């Protein structure tokens, strides 16, 4: 599904390398987790994959279902099936959440040559999905993320994911700032989307989210590289011993 090879990324504005040769393959239908200390480059990887400005790829490649995504516009990547649940969802005053969702869903359908959803069809689907994420009508009506609590913002990300039905879902610290109940809700939302044709890359600082979203593979990222890869037990090791042991071991 997603194949990243030797990815080197620096900042456009200053001479700073952040990703220093990332190799990572996420197979179709699998859930991979990336853990790692703050500042190791996890968010950068997610931004570069989804096409944010300001980064420069100096070497390597990233392919989604065999297609190079690094030259695509963000909207093309989205239409190709890539989705990023932001670590910090953006507030957009003046744009209604519902309008935003519908525009996004229909833009992707259009880009893929599918028929657009009518307002009524869309409403029906969004209501059902919002309900299971405990997102009320008011949150749908309000401007995108404006005045939402941390937990509401994260649930709103999952709602977008549920509506857009991407192939490759990247979740960046979706658990940060959530209490246990909110985390369960989010995890349920994610688990409901798991299927044989969809892959996940779950970025998290802590193991606890992985109790709810069971990964197939766990990677440890440090200083811009994947330094260790293992099964779910690797996450438990981090939980118990922190990163220091692992980093010392690979150093």
């Amino acid at each position, binding site marked *: 599904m997603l194949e990243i090879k030797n990815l080197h990324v620096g900042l456009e504005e200053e001479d700073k390398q952040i990703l220093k040769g990332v190799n990572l393959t996420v197979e179709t239908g699998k859930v991979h987790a990336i853990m790692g200390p703050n500042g190791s480059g996890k968010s950068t990887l997610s931004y570069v994959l989804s096409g944010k400005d300001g980064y420069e790829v100096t070497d390597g490649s990233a392919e989604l279902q065999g297609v190079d995504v690094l030259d695509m516009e963000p909207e093309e990547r989205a239409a190709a099936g890539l989705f990023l649940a932001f670590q910090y969802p*953006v507030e957009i005053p003046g744009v209604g959440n519902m309008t935003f969702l519908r525009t996004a869903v229909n833009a*992707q359908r259009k880009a893929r040559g599918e028929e657009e959803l009518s307002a009524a069809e869309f409403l029906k689907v969004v209501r059902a999905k919002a309900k299971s994420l405990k997102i009320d009508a008011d949150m749908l009506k309000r401007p995108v993320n404006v005045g939402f609590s941390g937990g509401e913002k994260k649930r709103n990300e999952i709602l977008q994911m549920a509506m857009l039905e991407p192939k490759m879902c990247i979740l960046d610290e979706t658990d940060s700032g959530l209490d246990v109940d909110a985390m369960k809700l989010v995890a349920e939302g994610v688990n409901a989307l798991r299927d044989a044709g969809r892959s996940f890359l779950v970025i998290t600082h802590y193991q606890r989210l992985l109790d709810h979203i069971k990964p197939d593979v766990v990677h440890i990222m440090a200083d811009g590289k994947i330094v260790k890869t293992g099964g779910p037990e690797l996450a438990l090791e981090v939980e118990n011993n922190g990163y220091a042991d692992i980093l010392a071991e690979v150093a």
Partner: protein
Amino acid sequence: MSAKLKNKGVVPSITVPDGGKWASEARQTAAALLAETGLPHRRDEYWKYTDPTTLTAPEATPAAIFESDEPLPFDGVDAVKIVFVDGVFDAAQSDALELDGVEIETLSDAAQKDIHWAGSVYGVLEGRGQYPVSRPLASYNTAMAEQGFVIRATGKAAKPISFIYLHESETSDAVIHHTIKLDEGADLTVLENGPAAARINAVMEVEVADTAAFHHVRAQGRDHERRTATHIFARLGTESSFKSFTLTVNGILTRNDAIIEFTGDNANATVAGACAGDGAFHHDDTVFITHDAVNCESRQVFKKVLRNGAVGVFQGKILVKADAQKTDGYQISQGLLLDENSTFQAKPELEIYADDVACSHGSTVGAIDDTALFYLTSRGIPHKEAQDMLTLAFLGEAIDEVEDEALADDLRALLEGWMARRHG
């Protein structure tokens, strides 16, 4: 007056139209003032950012007719429709001038009479608005206008009056003057699309008596080459309300002046505007609000989106006189520049002589928020569409000032359509 003489511009040679006593007097007074001030020029303090040359030239610069098959703004609103073609009233295309609670008369009819209530408004509010800043284009208008309506609302109007201006001649040079009076407790909505002609000089004087409410919503549409100077002069009585909103797209030159005076306590006024300009577009909002009564609230909300060298100007002044305690004056002007070629100039001014007032003003200019843009595009919304969404959201905050929800929705839809068409 010496300050004005120092700045004196060209005095046009004009002969005021014939009319009855009140109209002749008003016209001659305006002509005399114009002879004193001369026409505006670039050295005038309030014309520093906008070159008035094409507005004051003897002839209008020809303007190609803008062909469009889209419905006119406010087409769906149930209103008394009054049509002007190139600035001339067209009775055949208009509805009957009948509306419960409102008297509607042409300026030319009213001006024939020797005595008319219009004499207490026409040229009077405009005249009060000539100090401390002279407004020679309005003087010219008052002296020369033969087109326009004289409207008096005595109660709550059953529906809006909608002025529809059509532009059919490439050389039309329109001078239009509306005189509006709302009696105590009256409520009237006036809609305008335009005005339209190759060149337009439009004045609207609005007397809002105690407890009356006036609503004005205007759409200055897609006619690219028009040149427009408009003035609104309003005087507000006790507990009255005045709201004016203007949406502008395109137009090579637009100067909208609003001069509002509070003379009765506990009144409120809002002047707001949203504009979107692309390329050869110069748009200037100049507002002067005088608080001369207690506990009045004024709001100025102006938003401009500019691209490809378009220019936006905002000059807004709040003058609070010594007795105007408990004044609440708010002013915000914001420019959104979609590229580096466009410019937004803002000149906010506060002049306050009372001590118990709350006045605030702010002005910002900036580019589109990249973080928001990335968020939208990362969800699959194409770049242009995402930019439009953010632009509409930005302008939407000014449209929010329109009280009537249905009209506000009309304006949003209109703007959305205009934006979509830009992409061809």
